[in-house]
């Protein structure tokens, strides 16, 4: 889906999931899977007379993100109130940051490299997450709205890009890269449900900017943007024009629905949060955080190429997700065959993850498992085919590779008598192929294939090849009478 003159900008909200507490109070932030409204206190419930106190660790985490994205950090943290009524916000305003009216966000500028293209960052800011609304059944059928404030006050960073992406795919690549960066920093775990959410701005040549809200995952981003491009394109083609508006992505129906037009835009009445004093960020602090920064995906990719002699493309794929890069390095530390490992991770593990759409942390395999399989293959105990089989089996059952091999009897067969017996059997079953093979020796490969298939690839290929050759030459001798 690529249309000429398409400009896409993203507003990404990432929870700082490694924090133990909320942004302005000491409530636990570990709300997932918990009973509703248990991690709340007078402060995050905005009860009368309570005051927010800034979580300084959150500022450090957000600074780390800013540094990682190459953004310029402001000298002080200023918070603003964003005023609007909504039942998920206990105070009916959100403590956020603002870049106008004397406000300044945590950081300005920055840059993310995707697929040989740069996406500029406009600003990075820190704010609080609202609570969560849920309905019994659907919104339409539910007679009431339920509110869970466990999430209210969780630290959130907002990253706003310039409209530098030109296709839904680029938007997805950007988000994947961003997630990898955040995971390498250890500040946000993108695999947690709802930890990364985004709004997208999209405009086509000849149309105005449309904002799409309520996109909950990366897959949805691609879908929502593709839908919008088709919708806007058809409007423009029919000469109807695209006006500035805000739309809502309906995940179920997979369409966008108009929320409000430009004239109906909300007025948030921003003004400085009087209960928080400006939090001064010194250059010393910035340098200190810089010193403590972990290795980032781009640097890791370059290191993979240098240290492990991987192809640039392989290194790129492996570093897209931190857990996968970690898995690869875990294997490489146990077994000094990085290129083989990289091939197996990219060729076998990643497709499995994609097919099952699971996270690598949900895999039932550790680097030791894969290394064991590769070692068995390399010392000739099992064939490549068997190795694949064992890996798939380990992935689906979580059993140790040795167990799978024992259980299924898939150890490579080097017993000459057994191999001989199997060769006889294949030749008997394919008399026409045998006839052809006597004339054209290349057809022997076909018989080899049949043999391996019959034995599920368990025979030692070298031995089996020799046996077929020998049997064929015996047959050709006896046929010359």
């Amino acid at each position, binding site marked *: 889906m690529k249309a000429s003159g398409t400009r896409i900008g993203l507003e990404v909200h990432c929870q700082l999931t490694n924090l133990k507490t909320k942004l302005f109070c000491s409530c636990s932030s570990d709300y997932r899977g918990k009973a509703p409204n248990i991690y709340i206190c007078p402060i995050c419930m905005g009860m009368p007379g309570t*005051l927010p106190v800034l979580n300084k660790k959150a500022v450090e985490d957000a600074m780390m993100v800013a540094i990682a994205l190459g953004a310029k950090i402001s000298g002080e943290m200023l918070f603003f109130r964003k005023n609007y009524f909504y039942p998920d916000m206990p105070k009916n305003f959100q403590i956020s940051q603002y870049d106008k009216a004397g406000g300044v966000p945590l950081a300005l500028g920055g840059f993310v490299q995707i697929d040989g293209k740069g996406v500029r960052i406009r600003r990075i800011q820190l704010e609080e997450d609202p609570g969560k609304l849920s309905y019994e059944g659907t919104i339409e059928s539910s007679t009431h709205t339920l*509110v869970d404030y466990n999430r209210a006050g969780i630290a959130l960073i907002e990253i706003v890009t310039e409209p530098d992406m030109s296709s839904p795919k680029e938007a997805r690549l950007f988000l994947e890269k961003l997630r990898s960066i955040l995971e390498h920093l250890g500040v946000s775990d993108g695999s947690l449900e709802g930890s990364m959410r985004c709004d997208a701005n999209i405009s086509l040549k000849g149309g105005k900017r449309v904002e799409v809200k309520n996109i909950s995952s990366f897959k949805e981003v691609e879908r929502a943007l593709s839908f919008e491009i088709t919708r806007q394109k058809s409007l423009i083609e029919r000469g109807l024009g695209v006006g500035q508006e805000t739309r809502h992505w309906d995940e179920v129906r997979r369409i966008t629905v108009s929320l409000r037009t430009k004239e109906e835009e909300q007025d948030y009445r921003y003004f400085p949060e009087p209960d928080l004093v400006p939090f001064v960020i010194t250059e010393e602090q910035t340098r200190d955080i810089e010193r403590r920064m972990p290795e980032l995906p781009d640097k890791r990719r370059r290191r993979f190429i240098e240290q492990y002699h991987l192809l640039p493309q392989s290194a790129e794929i492996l570093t897209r997700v931190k857990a996968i890069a970690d898995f690869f390095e875990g294997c490489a530390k146990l077994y000094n065959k990085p290129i083989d490992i990289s091939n197996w991770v990219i060729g076998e593990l990643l497709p499995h993850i994609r097919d099952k759409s699971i996270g690598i942390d949900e895999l039932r395999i550790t680097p030791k498992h894969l290394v064991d399989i590769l070692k068995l293959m390399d010392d000739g105990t099992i064939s490549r085919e068997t190795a694949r089989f064992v890996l798939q089996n380990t992935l689906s059952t979580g059993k140790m590779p040795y167990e799978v091999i024992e259980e299924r009897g898939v150890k490579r067969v080097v017993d000459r008598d057994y191999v001989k017996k199997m060769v006889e059997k294949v030749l008997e079953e394919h008399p026409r192929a045998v006839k052809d093979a006597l004339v054209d020796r290349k057809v022997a490969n076909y018989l080899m294939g049949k043999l391996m298939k019959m034995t599920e690839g368990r025979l030692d290929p070298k031995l089996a090849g020799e046996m077929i050759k020998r049997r064929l030459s015996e047959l050709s001798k006896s046929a010359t009478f």
Partner: protein
Amino acid sequence: MELSAYKLVGRIRAKELRVEDYISSLYDRIKRMEKSVHAYITLTKDLALKRAREIDKKIERGDRTGRLCGIGIAVKDNICTKGIRTTCASHMLESFLPPYDATVIRHIDDEDGIVLGKTNMDEFAMGSSTEYSYFGPTRNPWDFDRVPGGSSGGSAAAVASSMATLALGSDTGGSIRCPASFCSTVGLKPTYGLVSRYGLIAYANSLEQIGPITGNVEDCALLLSCITSHDSLDSTSVNKPEEDYTKHLIDDVNGIRIGVPREFFGEGTQDSVEKMVWNGVLGLEGIGANYEETTLKSLQYALPAYYIIAMSEASSNLARYDGLRYGYRIPDKSYDWGTVFLKDRRFGFGFEVKRRIILGTFALSAGYHDEYYLKAQKVRTLIKRDFEMAFKKFDVLIGPTMPIPPFRIGEKVRDPLEMYMCDVDTVPSNLAGIPSISVQCGFSKGLPIGIQMMAPPFREDVLLRVAFSFQRNFPTLAKVRDK
């Protein structure tokens, strides 16, 4: 029971007075006076007597006692008290029970002070007369037909009528000093950041402070010493060592430089007020101080700037009252949430509160924000600067607290602008964040007049010294005698 807290603590510790007897006598007084004055919204007699007996036991055992040893304190009803309803004099919070104490309440408890009850006020501290209370007005103990000032009218009236020995109020634009002046008591608005605001239900966060309302300057210094602290729960509270303000109670103003800004005697200042305040200044000169007339030009814009900032902050602070989590909720719930919020707020808030929310919302709106809110903030910066300049020349600035003596109940409620005008002399201190005290200056036709003294930030010591000297040398009746 017209003794100062200062003297009472001495008598209680010397076992000349049992706390339980003293607290009981305060409730007897309340029983006699409350019908006419209506200073309290909620009384906590059982809790107070229980606490009194505990402190009596402490004294019997010879345990260490706090600096407020057994003293009965009235607390303005916008300061949260755990398990005791805190209403802000609003229908919206009529049955709100805070699950926490304000930091100042914890300090009072630590110092063995006793909360007598929660005092009446203008709803959400918005007003200068204590007429805008959901529970009805408080009356001035000196003249029951007149207002006690506001918004901490109940606290000042309770002290003036000896229904409490000490009281806590809050001051956003004069809400401690105005009733202190109208009720012939002492009221101090501390430097912004000196007293924790945790648990003070916000009207305009960037302007307000909790402070003492007392019968005399000694008690003011005592109570201030007990409530100041750095509080990690309030990011705007200042981290500075705690101070015993009673050691600044020195009767000596020799060499003190007094500035008298002309702007404090502007249009609308009644002659009797002007005359009495000048008498006060001349009196201070008589005991060794020097004075000079001066001018702070930016003060002419203080009142509009104050109201824009206060209302803007209020419009946001009061957004949380939607009836969903606590507070007033319409009985019929079969509406969508938008309608429920609307109705809860329509019926839960009083008229003046709604007026200020609407005006504040307007001042922050796109297109008006720069013209009103931002401009008001600029004026605020100018006012701060003017005060800084003035304090290079002067140790204290002096003017009237209120431009007029206490007015009649009902006299100004129909004209909000006239009501707002009453705050003209008190709001500058809030905009500048400086400490400011109102002390009894005398009576005009039987009505109390207050004199206001202002000092640079965190110079409560100078303020208390000048105020103490003034009171020592020119004593004025502080409490209503039994009729």
